């Protein structure tokens, strides 16, 4: 049996191996994570794939087969991955990268399976992040899978925020759940009555407990909080009807109803009594912020997994497209290469692949960043507590000095004697990481899922009609529509853009961004083939545009950059995401090159793999720079009024024909250079008006001009990548059923 394609010794021989990915995504030394990835992969490509292949996605209801998937998660250690070893888990320390890897492997086959695994963590996350030690111990112990010899069933949880029912006039910013005092015996703990209706709640069909966001409906309770509700509590714990969603059918989604009486000790994080009122230690907003900023990263990685998972089935389809036909005899190019004879098929696949690489790099970089941030954040919390500073606003005020020091550090010259002292300041470290995380998290969620969904459509199109059938290897059509949900849940695109418009303009982040721009220039000097120079120019253009828009007004005199002007701020947020993804992609390739040379498992092949992945970087930076250029040009020029022939000002910017004739006598040739000329009869060239000037934006045009020439070589990189794709060896069959 011949291989699908003959590999050339000078090109990447196989699809990137596990060892390559471990180096790129920085877990080559973490065998706990490697084992988790292998376990999750085994479940995904057996239990989950068989379920999808046998049509389990065709029902909205929670079925015994779907339940079996949860048990497979338990057995494989996926459920316990969220927990510390003493809680029944096996991974110590921060787990953002761990959960990201597990979700990545599951989403490689089915996004719903990944969501089902994540939703359990999401239910526990409020307790993990903000719960009291007692709450944390109790619910993690109950949720931990049974150890060998144990017969108990682990508890499953669901996170119930709120989702306004369409068309009934409920604001998304309002909580639909209410809490009031049901009883407060003297000297005892208060009892609370919790009423809550959830919508689109994941994991609800089988949830034994939920963490529900509620707001006070009683003057004796201050603000809002998150409550823990158990299904055996007194009152109604109705799991509700399943949502008839068209996506992620391997996760349970429904609209539950709760009306329960619970002790006040179920308030996540606890409470204090002040002036006879019950004051939760954490508002629901504080809890949610701590939870979502981590879990959103994982969702972004799910879409990245889909894109990368599409590569192998598309290659196989393209190569084998004509096999069996009379005109395609073994040994002929038509037989061996199939559709891959055609440049377009290869180029489009390169685009999908490059996007997947960038999305994965961005997502994993963000997950790692949160792993770094977690302990620093705890350190910051302890320092604040020591100083008696509590509450969001007081903390922000207290951190202002650290922010200035962080900016100082980022702009400091090499060898500055103060550097060591500032670097060692944990609050400065927190501010730096926090500013970065505040941008990278929404960027991952927004760009990976939104742009990822668009690129999944491209991947589906590469399979022809086969792509939109249930039989399509790799379940590409399901992955395409699933990506749309990933762009929506845990904060839709508008929410991510809104967050970015605030966080991307922080002084600390912008100082960091300038450092990154310089970093890309340095990378370009040593690795010109990565497109880093193009990226650096795109970054400069984005920054120039931001600064310009922050000070500019539109033709009517209205300020351009402010919170309500989403036509300005949101596209700029979109543009930034392209740049961030490309930067992470390039850094991952550099890491692979550097570490791979010393790793015997990849040393023989790393050069060719790095070459291919560098070409993908170059392809992607060109696309990113193009997007940035387009968006920035629209914003810089789009709010200026176009000059008009009827405008009075027209007389000052246009020559009249008579005037030109006179000038021609003193400046011969000027008439030939004038474009906008008004004839004696008042007629003018057939166009919208005199050409617009570039007053105030000439620097931008210079940058754009530079950017255009920076694209040199990017298409050559695409040609090289396409050639590698046409020759890379792939397995004979997909390693999961379809």
């Amino acid at each position, binding site marked *: *049996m*011949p*291989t*699908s394609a003959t*590999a050339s010794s000078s090109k990447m*021989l*196989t699809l990137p*191996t*596990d*060892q390559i990915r471990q180096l790129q995504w920085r877990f080559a030394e973490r*065998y*706990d994570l*490697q*084992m*988790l*990835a*292998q*376990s999750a992969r*085994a479940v995904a490509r057996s239990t989950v794939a068989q379920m999808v292949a046998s049509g389990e996605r065709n029902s909205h209801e929670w079925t015994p087969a779907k339940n079996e998937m949860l048990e497979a998660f338990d*057995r*494989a*250690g996926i459920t*316990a*991955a969220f927990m510390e*070893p003493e809680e029944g888990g*096996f991974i110590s320390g921060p787990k953002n990268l761990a959960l990201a890897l597990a979700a990545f492997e599951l989403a490689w086959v089915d996004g719903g399976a990944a969501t089902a695994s994540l939703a359990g963590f999401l239910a526990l996350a409020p307790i993990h992040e903000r719960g009291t030690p007692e709450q944390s111990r109790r619910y993690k112990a109950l949720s931990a899978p049974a*150890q*060998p010899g144990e017969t108990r069933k682990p508890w499953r949880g669901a996170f119930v925020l709120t989702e306004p029912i369409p068309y009934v006039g409920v604001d998304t910013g309002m909580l639909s759940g209410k809490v009031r005092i049901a009883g407060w015996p003297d000297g005892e703990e208060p009892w609370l009555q919790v009423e809550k209706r959830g919508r689109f709640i994941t994991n609800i069909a089988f949830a034994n407990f939920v963490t529900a966001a509620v707001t006070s409906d009683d003057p004796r309770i201050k603000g809002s909080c998150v409550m823990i509700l158990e299904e055996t509590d007194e009152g109604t714990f109705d799991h509700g009807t399943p949502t008839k969603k068209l996506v992620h059918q391997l996760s349970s989604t429904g609209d539950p109803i709760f009306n329960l009486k619970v002790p006040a000790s179920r308030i996540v994080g606890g409470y204090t009594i002040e002036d006879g009122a019950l004051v939760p230690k954490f508002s629901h907003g504080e809890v949610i912020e701590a939870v979502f900023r981590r879990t959103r990263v994982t969702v972004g990685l799910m879409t990245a997994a889909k894109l990368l998972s599409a590569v192998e089935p598309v290659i196989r389809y393209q190569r084998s497209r004509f096999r069996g036909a009379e005109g395609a005899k073994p040994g002929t190019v038509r037989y061996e290469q199939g559709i891959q004879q055609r440049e377009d098929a290869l180029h489009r696949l390169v685009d999908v692949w490059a996007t997947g690489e960038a999305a994965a790099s961005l997502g994993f970089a963000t997950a790692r960043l949160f792993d770094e941030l977690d302990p620093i954040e705890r350190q910051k919390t302890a320092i604040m507590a020591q100083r008696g500073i509590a509450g969001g606003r007081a903390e922000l005020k207290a951190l202002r000095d650290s922010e200035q020091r962080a900016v100082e550090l980022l702009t400091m010259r090499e060898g500055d004697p103060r550097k060591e002292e500032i670097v060692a300041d944990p609050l400065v470290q927190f501010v730096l990481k926090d500013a970065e995380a505040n941008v990278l998290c929404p960027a991952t969620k927004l760009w990976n899922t939104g742009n990822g969904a668009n690129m999944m459509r491209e991947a589906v199109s590469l399979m022809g009609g086969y792509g939109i059938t249930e039989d399509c290897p790799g379940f590409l059509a399901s992955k395409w529509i699933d990506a749309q949900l990933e762009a929506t849940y845990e904060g839709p695109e508008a929410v991510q853009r809104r967050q970015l418009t605030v966080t991307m303009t922080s002084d600390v982040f912008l100082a960091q961004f300038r450092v990154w721009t310089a970093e890309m220039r340095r990378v370009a000097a040593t690795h010109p083939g990565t497109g880093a120079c193009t990226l650096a120019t795109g970054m400069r253009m984005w920054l120039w545009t931001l600064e310009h828009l922050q000070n500019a007004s539109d033709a009517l005199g209205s300020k351009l950059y402010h919170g309500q002007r989403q036509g300005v701020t949101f596209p700029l947020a979109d543009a930034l995401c392209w740049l961030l993804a490309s930067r992470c992609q390039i850094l991952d390739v550099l890491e692979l090159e550097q570490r791979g040379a010393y*790793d*015997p*498992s*990849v040393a*023989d*092949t790393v050069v060719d793999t790095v070459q291919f992945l560098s070409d993908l970087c170059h392809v992607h930076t060109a696309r990113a720079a193009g997007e940035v250029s387009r968006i920035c040009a629209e914003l810089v020029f789009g709010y200026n009024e176009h000059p008009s022939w009827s405008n009075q000002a027209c007389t000052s910017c246009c020559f009249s024909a008579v005037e030109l004739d006179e000038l021609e006598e003193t400046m011969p040739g000027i008439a030939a250079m004038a474009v906008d000329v008004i004839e004696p009869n008042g007629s003018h060239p057939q166009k919208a008006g005199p050409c617009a000037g570039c007053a105030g934006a000439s620097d931008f045009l210079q940058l754009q001009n530079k950017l255009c020439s920076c694209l040199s070589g990017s298409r050559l990189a695409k040609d090289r990548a396409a050639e590698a794709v046409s020759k890379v*060896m792939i*397995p*004979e*069959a997909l*390693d999961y059923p379809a």
Partner: protein
Amino acid sequence: MSLHIVVCAGIVPDPLQTLEPIAGPNGPALKNEMMLPAVLDPWAASALYEAATLVSKFPGSRLWLVSLGPKAKLQQVMMTIAQKVTFELVAVDSASNGFADASATASALASGIAAIPDLDRTKLLLFGGWESASRGAGVTLQTVGELLGITDQFAGVDQIDMREDGSFEVLERVEGGKHQASVCAGAPAVLGWATGNLPEPHNNPQIGMANMRTVMPALQRAKQAALTNDGQQYLSASLPSQQRQTRVVRDLAPDAIAQELVEWIRTQ
């Protein structure tokens, strides 16, 4: 009663991969074998799971997994295998593949086993696959046994029942889908396993984490073993050709299909 079980288990390319024999500088090889994902040899994996079950029944018993192969590949495979059962790894670093000489392989394995500290040969049961999924020479394990001086050998084993006095009954596969039952007085013995009767254990990452404390150091200190071919020459190497004889017949009655099958079976 306690046992010391040593399981010899190599690694082979993932069966889903396309394998293409090529002529390498040192004889035949598989194209891009180093880059193909590997799995524990399925026959030997059965032996490992049977061994782990046996060890769990007899307190004080120990289980070693002796594996010969490229160190990087071994590490990749261990990430999965180490989650299944508890063992102590003895790794031998070698560019081994399906074309390696069985005698040289057996010699390297025997040396590795002989060097295991605390191994009590009077309690030793040497397990492995009765053949390998890479080539299926079917002689390696027996040779290891010979080199270690173990002469009680069983091949195609599907079951072992230990008795209180240390003796055991073994079921070996024989012709006609039957088993031959033998009773052995006790260790040491060599058992080349067929599939056994146990399912593949589920991954348990806690077992994995416990195993990794010994697996990673074992991989780091793995000794290199150069496998010599000793004048052996391969004239040619090719994959078995795929055979497919299909007839498309519409509306055939079930009885007629059954009859045809019976007739075909009779001719085999």
